[in-house]
């Protein structure tokens, strides 16, 4: 599976995320409180809502519509109304670039 150059490391504030679209799919790229970068599917598994407008708290991303929560490191659904886990993708940093291994 290809590694895709998604963004620069300084494109995302720490404890925040951005949306990244590639090949017709949408992803969310996170800059965690631990300084590491993470990637998940970009849409909430509950309803068709972009997570990029949500709130990152510690290692949790909260959907902006219904406050469903996921652990963005593992994709685990943590709070109703989300019941289905979020898909995650491997991330690596090369220099000042963030690369995501997309499906």
């Amino acid at each position, binding site marked *: 599976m290809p590694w895709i150059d998604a963004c620069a490391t300084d494109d995302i504030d720490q404890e*925040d995320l951005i949306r990244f679209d590639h090949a017709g799919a949408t992803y969310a790229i996170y800059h965690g409180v631990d300084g590491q970068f993470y990637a998940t599917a970009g849409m909430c598994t*509950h*309803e*068709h809502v972009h997570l990029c*407008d*949500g*709130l990152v*708290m510690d290692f949790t991303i*909260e959907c*902006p*519509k*219904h*406050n469903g*929560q996921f652990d963005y490191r593992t994709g685990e659904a943590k*709070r*109703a*109304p989300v*019941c289905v886990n979020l898909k995650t993708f491997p991330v690596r940093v090369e220099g000042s670039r963030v690369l995501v291994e997309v499906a």
Partner: protein
Amino acid sequence: MGKRDYSPFGADAKRAVDSGLTAAEWYHTDVPRKVMKDLMARSDGPAIRDTILLYGLMLAFAAGGIATWGSLWTIPFWLAYGVLYGSASDSRWHECGHGTAFRTPWMNNAVYQISSFMIMRNPATWRWSHARHHSETYLVGRDPEIAVMRPTEMGKILLNFFGILDVLNFFPTLVRNALAGPTPEERTFVPESDWSKVRRAAQVHLAIYLGTGAIAVATGSILPLMVIGLPRIYGAWHHVMTGLLQHGGLADNVIDHRLNSRTVYMNPISRFIYWNMNYHVEHHMFPMVPYHALPRLHAAIKDDLPAPNTSIAAGFAEMWPALKRQMRYEDFFVKRDLPPTAKPYREDFHHYVPGMMPANPAE
């Protein structure tokens, strides 16, 4: 559109799904990410302060009411206690259900459970109904929290200022939930994984009511019911008054909250009871913003919204004639002017579902 069918199994619900209305993207005012992050930031402080104040006042008023029971001096204590029990619980249920009131999850859950009991809502059922209310606000047949269905039935509205219909509907549903879980209608929005939670919560609530009733019978006094249960009737008026203003007389079957929700400036006491939900357009556009940040959100986006009603009375002056008109003309709704700084209403939103909205419904 004419006659509306509010059943989740009805023609309007099916049409909303088949047409794609339920999956459509709602209008949002543009807010810079950094501003929105700041507005969404969570803290425990404001809600801890307000919760201590609320429950402290409730204890004080209940104590005063009990101490003066049997005299006329008891009346003001119960009036005050009743509003906090039967109305402030509505806003606490709402904000803690969203998970935005406190930063700490267990605090949200604790106040949510207490408030759900006081406002007579099953905490497991209503968490899901409110998610649907936000996804599909005032889409006929889809939103289970439409307060005023068309044609308007004024008698029902007036009875509910005293919680009459809510309470009459609540207890049969409570017994049914306690025995068999969610009703068929509730199962359209509560996932099967939560059906057992619905049943368990109903059993706990029912046990408390039966216990309170037994104490009242044993002591030969309604005083226990003045503390638990009856305030949902004699103190409901404030949450009905403010709740009607949220969407009353405005459009349905649209996907722009500026068309179906209302922001009303209110006095500080009502805002405390209502936890700032008077900023209702703002709340629906950005439900992740905590109640204590809504005034700042309002300041940030008000140039893109219809002018707020300047008081509760002004809100009713706009809404009440519209509700009366909807008794005869179901398609009538109030369409507020936008300021010149606002992006225009997306008229295609009105006509998203062919045949659902008349060409010129507002008058």
